[in-house]
């Protein structure tokens, strides 16, 4: 156990050296840049999501900077911090960003447990724009300067469960979810909703964020002989293995992926085994949106990955933050910036977006299905 601690502190040291190196980049410019802390998982199971988040933000920032920046010529500078897919590390990254590096705002979070812990550090201290977490409490128990872009599990699930019940012709289901705040709330809510609309929920199994093999859980689920399996896996690396192992164990039923967790990389990694899988997503490429098209071009110029929902969500988070700072005429008067975010409609790579009083974002979302290896939109979900 002793060694685990050593390992962590070495990581922290390496990360802070990297940060110091990054922080000196901005000096050459005439006007000081607006410095945004991007606190994302850059190691651990969520590494890929974190990388896509950084890339999405950098592509969006490049577009804004090319047009002259915000607040009369200030460029946007993104400073990456690694939350290592863990709440403790997320909290310490937020502290460093606020106290040592004195950033202008925090834009980040892929997973609920980290956002839930981090919001207590940012509470009434700094603008905190949470990107992908779906746990309702992130905003329900948020603070006056906290905003969240993604739909909550409740908002998304209400619509999606209705679709599963009425359009998919299924009688029974088993749930496989990650054992964290997000997975547990997904499992609890869908278990309830699907039961309420007449489906039989025969079992719920959980896996850990560090698992690489899911045969044990899936064997148990296969034994329940359900028409469908509902999978709530937030990391692409785990999702891909799950979809493969479902088919490797000979399961022939319908598979449904939890909302927002469908992306081109997942399809590439899962191969044929993800064919026909349903999900719900606010980011689809087959719906017309010029802002998204420009962003995709910029993204393709800079990065190898295909764009995904989490990349788009991160880009939208940056667009909203930068736009609101510009409208409010300040990068540090959070009262004014927060009022600007609440008071306006935002055109983002995810389409038109609004925020309510507690900072919850509203966006369009779609029912999608994997057909011939492509994410295909089948209906509007909300």
């Amino acid at each position: 156990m002793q060694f685990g601690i050593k390992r962590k502190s070495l990581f922290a040291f390496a990360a802070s050296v990297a940060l110091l190196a990054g922080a000196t980049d901005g000096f050459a410019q005439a006007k000081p840049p607006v410095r945004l802390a991007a606190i994302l998982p850059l190691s651990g199971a969520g590494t890929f999501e974190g990388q896509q988040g950084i890339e999405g933000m950098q592509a969006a920032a490049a577009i804004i900077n090319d047009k002259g920046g915000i607040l009369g010529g200030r460029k946007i500078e993104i400073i990456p911090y690694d939350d290592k897919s863990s709440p403790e590390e997320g909290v310490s990254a937020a502290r460093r960003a606020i106290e040592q590096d004195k950033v202008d705002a925090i834009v980040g979070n892929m997973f609920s447990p980290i956002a839930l812990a981090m919001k207590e550090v940012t509470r009434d201290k700094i603008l905190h724009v949470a990107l992908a977490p779906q746990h309702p409490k992130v905003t329900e128990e948020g603070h006056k300067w906290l905003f969240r872009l993604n739909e909550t599990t409740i908002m998304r699930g209400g619509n999606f469960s209705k679709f599963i019940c009425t359009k998919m012709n299924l009688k029974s289901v088993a749930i496989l979810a990650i054992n964290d705040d997000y997975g547990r709330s997904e499992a609890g809510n869908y278990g309830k909703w699907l039961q309420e609309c007449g489906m039989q929920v025969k079992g719920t199994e959980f896996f850990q964020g560090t698992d690489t093999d899911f045969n044990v859980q899936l064997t148990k689920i296969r034994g329940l002989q359900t028409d469908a399996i509902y999978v709530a896996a937030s990391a692409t690396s785990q999702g891909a293995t799950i979809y493969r192992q479902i088919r490797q164990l000979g399961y022939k039923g319908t598979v449904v992926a939890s909302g927002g967790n469908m992306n081109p990389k997942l399809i590439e990694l899962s191969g044929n085994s993800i064919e026909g899988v349903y999900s719900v997503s606010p980011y689809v490429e087959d719906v017309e949106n010029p802002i998204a098209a420009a962003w995709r071009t910029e993204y393709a110029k800079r990065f190898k990955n295909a764009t995904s929902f989490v990349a788009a969500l991160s880009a939208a988070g940056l667009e909203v933050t930068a736009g609101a700072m510009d409208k409010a005429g300040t990068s540090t008067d959070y009262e004014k910036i927060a009022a600007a975010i609440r008071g306006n409609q935002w055109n983002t790579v995810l389409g038109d977006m609004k925020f309510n009083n507690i900072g919850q974002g509203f966006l369009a979302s779609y029912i999608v299905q994997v057909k011939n290896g492509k994410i295909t939109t089948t209906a509007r979900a909300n």
Partner: protein
Amino acid sequence: MGAVFFQQLANGLVNGMGYVLIAVGLTLVFGVLRIVNFAHGEFYMLGSFATFFAMSLLGVHYIVAVLMATVVVAGVGVLANQVLFRPLRREHEFTILMVSLGLSLVLANGGELVFGADPKYISSPFADDAVELGSVFLTWQRIIVLVAASVLICLVYLFIRFTRMGKMMQATAQNREGAALSGVNIDWVHTYTFALACGLAAAAGALLGPTAVIFPTIGEWAVLKAFIVVVMGGLGSMGGAVAGGLILGIVEALGANYISIAFKDAIGYGIVVAVLLWRPAGLFAPRQ
């Protein structure tokens, strides 16, 4: 009921055999060189990535890629031994431990830099086709893991037991100074041991890789499981590693099924605590 039991038994057996393959190298390096190698998991990771790149860049067949990965990573292991561990042989054990920890960080973070953070899939032709044995589904890949691991472990056992080098390894493990005095070339013994251990870790990565997806930090998982197995079986004991790995795999699968999946990892640590209370040096500890 029976169907689930046998499937879980098969799952546990395959996972356990994977653990064995990783743990045998770790226990060898400890037994012969007295090094607790924290970087052992990273050689597992390198094995899986070497397989991936051999297939995608050189276009070779999966089986060829596995062999290439094993040989190349064994070479990397020899290099690591020459550059890092050999010069430090007379230093305090703690120094060597820190160096192995440093090596593991460099390899894992270097892996993210060089290979990229995005997960990758080794497209083995055996990965998706399953065989039905009664109610038990096993992919060919998992059968290959079982067979290849068994063969490799037997070969390593025969090598250590009957070849000249194997006997020198045993002598070095028992008494380094005594072996050196009676003419054993300790440098060669260390080189061979490292090559063998890293080659086995790489083979494990190459064989288990296609059963999931790979990313540069999978070594952390591998070394953790290997440590549980080695501590349970007795540090430095090969028989202990084999028994420990199989026990861990099977108990994890059955325990998760019949007790609770939430305890899957806790079960592993639970067995270790129980074994250590009962036999503090591990199940199969070599007599001191």
